[in-house]
């Protein structure tokens, strides 16, 4: 059970890490909010969208959203490759 021990030790270290994280941050009152206040104040006039989340998702951070759709596309093309019909002459090396 050496592996169990290693895993337990690393989990304890991580618990300490994240424990510090949980204690340092305060829930409900973020310290700095200047970027988000900008979105709330100017998002409506700049994008014309009432839903500020959509304004952030598709306008201010629209490029991320393109990347995110692309990630899904990657997964779908990967799944398509996995379930394709293989034919005889394909490269393989099963020894």
């Amino acid at each position, binding site marked *: 059970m050496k592996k169990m021990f290693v*895993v337990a030790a690393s989990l304890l270290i991580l618990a300490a890490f994240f424990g510090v994280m*949980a*204690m340092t941050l305060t*829930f409900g009152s973020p310290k700095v909010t200047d970027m988000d206040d900008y*979105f*709330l104040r100017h998002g*409506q006039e700049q994008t014309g969208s*009432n839903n500020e989340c959509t304004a*952030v998702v598709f306008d201010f951070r629209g490029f991320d959203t393109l990347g*995110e759709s692309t990630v899904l596309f990657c997964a779908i093309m990967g799944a398509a490759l996995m379930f394709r019909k293989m034919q005889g002459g394909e490269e393989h090396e099963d020894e």
Partner: protein
Amino acid sequence: MLWNLPFITVVVLTLIGLATVLLKKNIIKILLGINILESAVNLFLIALGYRGGGVAPIFTLAPSELMVLPTPQALVLTSIVIGVATSALVLSFAMVLKKRYGTVDINKIRRLHG
């Protein structure tokens, strides 16, 4: 400290997820561990953006002008879709492995040794 409960939940979820990933041998269970970890990080992000008493950042008939931060919600949306994509690919791999080896236990399918 009760007011930090969301962050403490994040810690607990992270540890559960990591323990699942590291200790379980079944690919599906490993994937579940990854999904728990993803939930933890999503909860972390969304909890960072909460402002006490705030409403969702949508102006359509909003009950108040005090709103929570919109950026974490966008980040979590992205992160959720990425999580779905990862799960789909891992499950496809698991299905192919099940078809070729007849098992999804990583100890039994280990033919690579690195």
